[in-house]
């Protein structure tokens, strides 16, 4: 890899939104809060887009290490992998802000909500731009901390219970993660500047143990089975928060950490020589099937979508763990496609809930008449998630299917196909019910606010357009796979 280009832009990109987020707590006027939140997201997205031309050429931007104490230093290093994740977060962040304006209009403690939302997404971007393990861990834990008040925003008994679960799962994960981080630093690696930072001379069992703790640590956030339980529970939070959890930051960051561990900390060769790639693939496969099957049985719309996330995030893990170029490209593209579609689906669920108070799939009869635009977008996003051409989901599945074939592990191809079918089974009946079933009781057409429709359509149509013009993300994904797997 070539030497990184020196710049302090990543520091600004992370800390300016964080400072703006803190300012929000001091502001009393709702308009100013929205302005600050929007400003933070625009700064984030603007700065990241500005880096795109450089990064897509395969170059790397990095700051100098900022030492806080011996061995503990902040270091930001933007490579294609980080930029891809950061761009997804920042882009969806803007639309989450727009959606939140209307969605939270009548809620209390909005200052707190805006503040923590901004801080959380900014920390998520911090994780993706981190250049060493300590920085990654710092922002990873900050993301968990700042998301907690959002999860329990309702302050009801159910919200507090969900918060408790969120908290227990994620912080046990983080304790394991800190152990792995310290251990890796002890073994001599911290900066993500090469593929495989660990010395291969260590005893294999020790390295297997380290990989295991890493997978547990990041896996909790990536909601891999059986560490996924907090994610469906957290669906009780306001819809912008579920979007944050499922698409903007939290789950993405978990899978991001796993990719960093597989490729930057261990490296494909070491993983293979340890014989751990099989384990990762099996974990991903089980999660994929399990999540899809559970999703089938959920009547609560948000919970069904949440289990669908459990399944879809594991596609990404599977693609990354087969250690083949197509698999990795497919994994990254799938992450982008999933984020767009899932944000749209959740916003639809939120708009339906706010418009009609319906939360269950079984209550959605006639919804296609009541909120036609929302249900059209829902259908488009569902098709995108299933992977119907020409959406981005199709492209990602194409690459994902190539992955196991290249790696000659076709049994997992079967799992992918099965999971795709299941995905159709749990999403399409919703559309069917909305358009072709009658509602109980009177039905009237509703106007849906543009604050809802714009973010919903950006997700759904964005996924569609990116399927036709996938260049911005596909180039990044190719750069990632070239740098990790050598073309």
């Amino acid at each position: 890899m070539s030497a990184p280009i020196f710049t302090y832009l990543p520091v600004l990109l992370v800390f300016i939104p964080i400072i703006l987020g803190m300012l929000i707590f001091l502001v009393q006027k709702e308009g100013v809060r929205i302005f600050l939140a929007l400003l933070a997201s625009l700064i984030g997205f603007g700065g990241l887009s500005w880096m795109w031309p450089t990064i897509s050429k395969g170059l790397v931007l990095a700051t100098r290490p900022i030492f806080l104490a011996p061995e503990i230093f902040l270091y930001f290093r933007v490579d294609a992998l980080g930029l891809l994740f950061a761009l997804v977060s920042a882009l969806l962040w803007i639309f989450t802000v727009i959606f939140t304006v209307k969605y939270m209009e009548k809620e209390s403690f909005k200052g707190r909500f805006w503040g923590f939302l901004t801080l959380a997404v900014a920390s998520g971007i911090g994780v993706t731009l981190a250049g060493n393990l300590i920085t990654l861990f710092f922002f990873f834990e900050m993301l968990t901390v700042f998301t907690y008040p959002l999860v329990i925003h309702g302050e009801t008994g159910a919200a507090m219970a969900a918060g408790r679960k969120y908290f227990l799962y994620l912080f046990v994960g983080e304790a394991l993660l800190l152990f792995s981080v310290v251990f890796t630093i002890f073994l001599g690696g911290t900066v993500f500047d090469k593929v495989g930072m660990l010395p291969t001379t260590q005893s294999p069992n020790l390295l297997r143990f380290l990989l295991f703790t890493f997978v547990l640590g990041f896996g909790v956030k990536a909601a891999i089975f059986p560490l996924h339980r907090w994610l469906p529970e957290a669906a009780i939070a306001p819809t912008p928060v579920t979007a944050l959890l499922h698409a903007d930051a939290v789950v993405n960051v978990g899978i991001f950490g796993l990719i960093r561990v597989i490729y930057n900390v261990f490296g494909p060769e070491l993983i293979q020589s340890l014989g751990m790639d099989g384990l990762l693939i099996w974990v991903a496969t089980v999660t994929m099937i399990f999540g899809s099957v559970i999703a089938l049985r959920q009547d609560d719309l948000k919970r069904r979508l949440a289990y669908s996330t459990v399944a879809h995030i594991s596609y990404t893990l599977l693609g990354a763990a087969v250690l083949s170029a197509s698999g990795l490209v497919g994994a990254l593209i799938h992450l982008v496609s999933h984020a767009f579609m899932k944000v749209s689906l959740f916003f639809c669920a939120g708009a339906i809930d706010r418009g009609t108070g319906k939360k269950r799939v079984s209550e959605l009869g006639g919804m296609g008449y009541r909120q036609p635009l929302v249900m059209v977008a829902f259908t488009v996003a569902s098709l995108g998630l299933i992977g119907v051409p020409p959406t981005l989901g199709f492209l990602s599945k194409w690459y994902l299917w190539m992955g196991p074939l290249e790696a000659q592990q076709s049994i997992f191809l079967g799992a992918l196909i099965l999971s795709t079918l299941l995905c159709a089974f749990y999403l399409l009946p919703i559309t069917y019910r909305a358009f072709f079933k009658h509602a109980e009781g009177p039905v009237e057409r509703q106007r849906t606010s543009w604050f809802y429709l714009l973010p919903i359509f950006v997700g759904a149509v964005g996924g569609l357009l990116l399927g036709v013009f996938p260049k911005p993300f596909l180039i990044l994904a190719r750069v990632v796979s070239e740098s990790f797997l050598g073309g």
Partner: protein
Amino acid sequence: MEKHFLILTVTVPLATATLIPLLSIRWERAGFWLASLALLFSFGSALILVGGVLVDGRIAYHVGGWAPPWGIEIFLDWVGAFFLLLASSLSLAVAIFSRIYVEQNLEASKIPLFYVLLLLLAGGMIGFILAGDIFNMFIFFEIFSLSSYALVAISGGLESLKASFRYLLMGTISSLFVLLGIGLLYSLTGTLYMPLLAQELGVLPYSGAIRAATALILVAFGIEAALFPLHVWLPGAHSLAPSPVSALLSGLVIKMGVYGMIKVLFYILGGRGSSEIGALFSLMAATAIIVGALFALRENDIKLIFAHSSVSQIGYVILGIYLFSYFGLAGGLLQVLNHALAKSALFLCAGVVISQAGFRRLEDLRGIGRRMPFLMVFFTIALASLASLPFTCGFASKYYLCKGAIERGEFWLAGIVLLGSFLTLLYCVKIVNYIFFATPAVGRGGGERSYPEVSPWMMVPIGVLGFGSLLVGIFPGLSFILIKPAVLGLLGMVR
């Protein structure tokens, strides 16, 4: 020149303590002003002294001009400078905070007494830090221990008298053990001056007598440091004492036990027998970390939570010291700093709440964050630091402790450190939930409770501690100006 401040920084608070009862007859606020001025002086001279240490590394003062081994030497080196800075600054903050608190919560006749005891406590601790021979260490140890028993009991309630008595019982055993140990060492070597003692002990075989003396003194300081299972006195004493006293007891006094251990282990024994002592004490420390946190998790009284949490947090310090490695010691000392700032800020905040609003159970604290936002922001910073979140001093100390444990191949200790900080996080979140994320409690009249304004005399010390916590949290490297040479000096003593 600056070496004269060595003796002044001890004697000024002690001498002022004797003046307060006299001047209080005529002048009502004499206690507060004299105590604050004396501690301000101590703090100022501590700064000068630390400056001297930064230049020279070690400064010593021979009392009466008599050089050791005949005369008494008091000295300050890197480790001492670290503890001295903490002791003098915290005592000053607590003295300033006490002004309003004491007037609201103690009978007027006890106020001068309170300041007398506060000065004796502070002066005793500073003397303990500076003492160059173990007998003077013992004397100052007695001075600050006795004044802390009295301070625990000062409010005069039955419960606090009981707690104080329990503290007194354990404390007396502790002093007795120290004295016995010192006697043994003296009979073996014929000297009390620490460098000479270390030299003499170095040539002697590591006999049963040395072991016995070491064990006696370490257990004694273990009681003072509230190391599990010698901690039974702590929860009662720390939770029932007046809040500023709790802040000082938890923030500083238990650290004196740690400082005493450091003196014995490194200055006197030169790291001898470190493997067997280390194994036992790290086991005790590990238990303390977990058990203390579990007890804290179970409690409902805010000061009891903090008291149990001190048992757990001091476990980290002691674990770090008994790792006998660079990162272990650095983590331990950083944890001293972290816990001193965070825990005293927490106790002072609790003091404000208890004093202004009159309650201390978690249920009563519901929604208080919306009523006292600034106070609770500092409170949360301190809690975050305790829970070792990123960008706090706690994170750095846990990181180094973990690293130290892994370096020695003791993975389970690293696991204990992390499990402990997870449990700490749990009880911190429990408190935060009540403070910020619960509907405010209903007052007697049916409406929301009202909260009086917090006096700046209380807010400023809390603010300073909170900002200090934030500063060393974001830049833990600042404290390494003192910690790094201190740790290297300690490791240099290991033979």
